[in-house]
């Protein structure tokens, strides 16, 4: 099996970093000098035990405050699989960093303190996880050691989450009771919870099937860069470099190029290592086409009978990330979608999501930091997109404030039109 990317989520102090530390520790993925250093820091900070959260909380400010501020990436491997972990912050102020860490995840671990159940922040993260359409979610009911490893308590939190999740779209949902601090059900099944019949977290991560999460149907190749060597041997060479973000392209396939609408045939699929007969996501390849067509960065290569939507009007969910600026109708921003950069004007802000109840608050004036709402945008040039639910690559975008160059929103396309 290939790579699995997963992220942590959940309220502040519910044990995300501790869990990652425990997972690394129990899989022997921690080096001796790292351990020595966090032991020394733990003693210095007056902890009674080695604080495994220090493995990911590496910034000075994080250690001073005892919280995670920004995403830490960690890596480990078992004989079965390689893992990329994004440990994200629970604090509401840093929600955008949670979105950063989970945007590319195959799976999200949502931690909940078994003593307290869900908080507003758990709900916010659960909602974001479903908005980002993370295909797999594991709810880790943590700190079971503080509630006598009680099955009823676990069931109560599970029920609470399930009730909330009914309003969300989470295709694959699993619950595991655990103690991140002591390692119960992290790497192996805990003797303290005989009543729990499921797998340990690690076992679950190792076995998870992700191959079908990718869209292998809609062939999409956004042109990223045009390769023109202009040197002797390759004088007339013209190749379209990019990353396949959906479907499969084969040599000989008839293709359609947007925005021109012209058609051509895949003459070859090339790489430094030689030609390949087919290309699929996420391969980074160079495509050559028959005929002489003018194609440049930002164009989209697809199949004539299966094209993305092409429109200057997109309906989207906006996750606002600026503390300095509010998102409001009439606002102009830069947009980056796929390999295309353009500008947008906010045509309409339809509603804001109340993260407590998931109710829609209609026609709000604006979205503030960490608020989520639905808006229609008008772009200066047509975008070639799919709904995010069909394709995470062609269905996502970022918005950039042109004055400060800050990334101010994550956008998810839910449709076209005004």
């Amino acid at each position: 099996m290939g790579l699995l990317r997963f992220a942590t989520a959940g309220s502040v102090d519910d044990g995300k970093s501790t869990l990652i530390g425990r997972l690394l520790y129990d899989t022997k993925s921690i080096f001796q000098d790292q351990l020595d250093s966090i032991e020394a820091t733990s003693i210095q900070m007056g902890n009674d035990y080695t604080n495994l959260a220090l493995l990911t909380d590496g910034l000075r400010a994080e250690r001073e405050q005892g919280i995670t501020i920004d995403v830490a990436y960690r890596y480990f491997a078992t004989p079965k699989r390689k893992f990329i972990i994004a440990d994200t912050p629970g604090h509401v102020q840093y929600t955008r960093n949670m979105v950063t860490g989970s945007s590319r995840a195959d799976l999200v671990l949502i931690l909940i303190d078994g003593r307290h159940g869900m908080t507003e922040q758990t709900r916010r993260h659960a909602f974001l996880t479903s908005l980002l359409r993370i295909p797999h979610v594991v709810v880790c009911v943590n700190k079971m050691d503080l509630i006598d490893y009680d099955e009823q308590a676990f069931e109560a939190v599970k029920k609470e989450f399930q009730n909330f999740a009914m309003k969300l779209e989470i295709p694959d949902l699993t619950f595991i009771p655990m103690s991140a601090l002591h390692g119960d059900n992290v790497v192996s099944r805990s003797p303290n919870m005989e009543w729990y019949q499921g797998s340990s977290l690690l076992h679950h991560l190792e076995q998870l099937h992700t191959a079908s999460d990718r869209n292998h149907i809609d062939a999409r190749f956004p042109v990223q860069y045009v390769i023109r060597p202009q040197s002797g041997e390759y004088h007339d060479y013209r190749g379209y470099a990019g990353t396949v973000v959906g479907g499969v392209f084969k040599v000989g396939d008839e293709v359609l190029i947007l925005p021109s609408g012209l058609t051509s045939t895949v003459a070859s699929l090339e790489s430094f290592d030689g030609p390949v007969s087919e290309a699929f996501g996420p391969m980074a390849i160079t495509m050559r086409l028959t005929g002489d067509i003018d194609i440049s960065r930002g164009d989209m290569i697809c199949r004539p009978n299966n094209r993305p939507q092409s429109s200057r009007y997109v309906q989207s969910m906006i996750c606002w990330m600026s503390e300095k600026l509010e998102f409001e109708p009439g606002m102009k921003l830069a947009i980056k979608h796929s390999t295309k950069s353009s500008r947008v004007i906010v045509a309409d802000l339809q509603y804001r999501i109340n993260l407590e109840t998931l109710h829609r608050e209609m026609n709000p004036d604006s979205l503030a930091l960490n608020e989520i709402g639905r808006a229609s945008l008008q772009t200066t040039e047509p975008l070639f997109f799919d709904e995010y639910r069909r394709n995470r690559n062609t269905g996502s975008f970022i918005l950039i404030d042109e004055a400060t160059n800050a990334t101010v929103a994550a956008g998810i396309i839910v449709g076209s039109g005004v």
Partner: protein
Amino acid sequence: MSITAYELSHLDTLEAESIHIFREVAAEFERPCLMFSGGKDSLVMLHLASKAFWPARLPFPIIHIDTGHNFPEVLEFRDQVIEKLGARLLVASVQQSIDDGKVVEETGPRASRNRLQITTLLDAIEEHRFDALFGGARRDEEKARSKERVYSFRDNFGQWNPKNQRPELWNLYNGRINQGEHIRIFPISNWTEVDVWQYIRREKIVIPNIYFAHNRQVFSRDGMWLADSEYVTRTEDEKVLTRKIRYRTIGDMSCTGAVDSDAETIEQIIEEVSATRITERGETRADDITSETSMEDRKKEGYF
């Protein structure tokens, strides 16, 4: 064919992600440049860049921040590699910065030019008006690096602000900057040391011979074997002896430690690296061991 067959191995996935980043930068920036040290990570970077633009040449120059304290084997190797690629090499010299009075050489037995390179690097960026600099840093190397974005924004002073990094969503990178600012780009952020070695083996990337076990005149300092060279002043107690060692990382001769090793082939190196209980920087970099937050502090000043 079943759909599940369309899956890439982990090395292919990492390679594709890195190539995507190289191309994105070449497409969006005006004056990118690749920082090259001659070490394994920068060799993997060069290899990935060659793949990204093949059959064209690299659309950017290579820069080496020459501390003047390099391993001679590595300098020689650097020139061969660059010539073979037909790439353009720029050298920014720390000695020059010292001669120009921009920085002052440290003194004492632990003097190092590690910190001085920051000035040389930032001056070179300003001189050449680079807007994007590729670096071979990996997130598994160090705890501050584990927090850094792939596109790491640097202000007018070249500083990294870890408390206010731009959100980085999906693989949509925001490369917008104002004049005088730049972005450090880390295409192999998600690679581990073992990934790098496995890739070197798979791709048959040629590496400097000091990565393989050899006999060398060394002395012990702070639990590390340092090469006896004109760049370090030994104290009386620091006796030179010959040991069979290899380098796990390549930095300055004055502060890069060697490890005891019998690994003479890439296979043996992979075995050794897979079994080790100490991180590469912890084992071999005197500059990182000085304090708990030395990397974070240096990065805030503009370090690689």
